[in-house]
């Protein structure tokens, strides 16, 4: 399938799973279901997954579209260095997080969705993708070239004004011999 970056889809799936896990957990806790401790865990896990997955990675090819307001999350996630950069870590992390969700009906859906996201991340990791932060580009002005520091000392070899005016109308007549040599001798 061409140049798919699986991580993009895994990211969407994981973010959705985080939200579903969170919602299931809230229902479990609010309704005081049996096993509500798992629901409470799901709330915390859901929030964590959402925070981790909110900042989008920079794409290897093409333009990256950030989610609104993701800059602060990018900075936090970037601070963990290789733990968040590597997708193998993410895949196993999500697989581990999703397991306790399977013990309660309200959070089972979140658990399965996160499991699927973990599998897609595994596929991304096997293909060698990794997470890159999207940081605002600092416009680096091209360093001023050396020659600009030394402006030319002599004026360019322009012909006198009369000859210049002639140039516009008559190319042949405008030709003249340059007094100074223009080649590097």
């Amino acid at each position, binding site marked *: *399938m*061409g*140049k*798919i*970056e699986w991580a*993009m*889809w895994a990211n*969407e*799936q994981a973010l*959705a*799973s985080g939200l*579903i896990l969170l*919602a*299931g957990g809230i*229902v*479990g806790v609010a*309704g005081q*279901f*049996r*096993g509500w401790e798992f629901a409470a865990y799901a709330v915390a896990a859901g929030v964590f997954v959402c925070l981790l997955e909110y900042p*989008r990675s920079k*794409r290897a090819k*093409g333009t990256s*579209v950030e989610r609104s307001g993701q800059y602060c999350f990018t900075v936090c996630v970037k601070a963990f260095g290789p733990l968040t950069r590597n997708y193998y870590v993410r895949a196993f992390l999500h697989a581990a997080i999703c397991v306790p969700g*399977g*013990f*309660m*009906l*309200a959070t*089972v*859906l979140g658990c*399965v*969705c996160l499991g*699927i996201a973990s599998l897609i991340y595994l596929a991304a990791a096997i293909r060698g993708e990794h997470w890159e932060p999207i940081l605002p580009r600092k416009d680096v002005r091209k360093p001023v070239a050396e020659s600009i520091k030394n402006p030319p000392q002599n004026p360019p070899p322009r012909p006198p004004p009369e000859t210049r005016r002639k140039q516009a109308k008559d190319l042949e007549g405008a030709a003249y011999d340059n007094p100074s040599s223009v080649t590097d001798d």
Partner: protein
Amino acid sequence: WAQCMKFSQSQEKYLIYGKYKITLYLLDLFESLSWARAPAACLNFNCMLILLPVCRNLLSFLRGSIQFCSRTAARQLDRNLTFHKLVAYMIAFHTAVHIIAHLFNFEFFMDAQLNRNSSFLPFVLSEIGTDDNASFLNPIRSNETNPTIVMFTTIAGVTGVVITLALILIITSSMEVIRRSYFEVFWYTHHLFIIFFIGLVFHGYGRIVRGQTAGSQQTNKPHLCADRFEDWGKNESDCAVPEFAGNPPGTWKWVLGPMILYVCERLVRIYRSHQKVVITKVVMHPSKTLELQMRKKGFHMEVGQYVFIQCPSVSRHEWHPFTLTSAPEEDYFSAHIRIVGDWTQALYEACGGDKTETQEAWKLPKVAIDGPFGTASEDVFRYEVVMLVGAGIGVTPFASILKSVWYKRIQNNQEVFTKKIYFYWLCPETEAFEWFADLLQSLERQMAEKDVANFLSYNIYLTRWKETEAAHFRVHHEAENDPITGLKQKTLYGKPNWDNEFTNIASKHPGTKVGVFLCGPPQLGKSLEKQCLSHTEGDVKFIFNKENF
């Protein structure tokens, strides 16, 4: 609004429907059952609707027939994708409500089994029918289980999980980011809808929601007998032990029709894809644009329509939409394809674009065409004065329109209602000019020959440029032909001053209806719409039409 009405209607239905009164008691009078059944009814309705907007051929056919009756109705059919997405969001919302309500239901059903106290009505109700396993009420049959296990051992539970997963995967792969960049993922994952519909139909087969049988409602009337549950079945009381049965599945009645229509749609697409399409000419334009001129037996198009093109040698399952750039009067139809991704690049190579010598006709790849599908461009000819605004690649449908107007006016010598066209092309870069500039050049030449130079007035605006180019423009400002397009009409820089333009046109054409057509970004649409409204005064009316691709 239709959704809300349906929702509340269903709720009412399940609250007052006698059959379910006792079921409600099982839930300790919590109304979560109606909260689950109401979205289920809405889901039936939405799942019926969602397949319809994507039956393009059916819509095209409908559009053709409706056009004779009402043009506004025809235009509604063009917003099919927006409608499809809206219905999809409603499905997601109702699914969420449905699931949450059932979570509560299962919890209460479980409670009813666990709280083994004979003065607890829900428990008493759960005990009914334990012997014959037929007339029971509580779907959870014992206290040694838990809701998760029950879910995975009932048809309704398993199908529910499977179809919700399918729905979630479909939604995450349909996010704009994924759809625009990795169309294949979106397209293949979207086919999970087949699993979705199959699961949906079988979701009710276990008849897990139970209500009191009609016969039992005579012998045990809930409003009389609910409090005297300890006396049920005893000789003195006139309350017999109630009997329950499950509900027959009803979803299939809603979705069977659309499913059949969709199957027909796919068959039509397959049939059309096998019809022979011949590529008569391939032109490589410098702006990384490939022009394919094709012929197909029985092909008939209108201005501004689009087709789906498939090239089996490039990809067996991908169909991509392209606007037709030829006029109906020509003996071929053409599409200009910009090379932006995998598929277009592969098509370019298959057509021999990277080779320098001309290709033999038989070496050209086989292509298949689905379409043409319509937009509202035909309206252009209904106005005496027309303003056409195209931004960047959005100019493509206008190529077809301009050519067609030209043919109608000159070659067929017909009296065309349209007397004057003002054409605005806004472009951020010069490269995309090339092929369209050719068209404008030839139109310009032909108009000069026939001495109708006033018919078409075009303005090209270059909205972005690099510093190096700017120097070139400055130097060649006095040249006779424009340095970029080679046209006599000079390219203008920056964005047009719409206020001035509208005022000019209004003053030149008093007492007419001016049609304004846009193909471009929404912000431009909004500002043009505002201009139309503000300049429509006195006898000049500006009517805004937006193309949507």
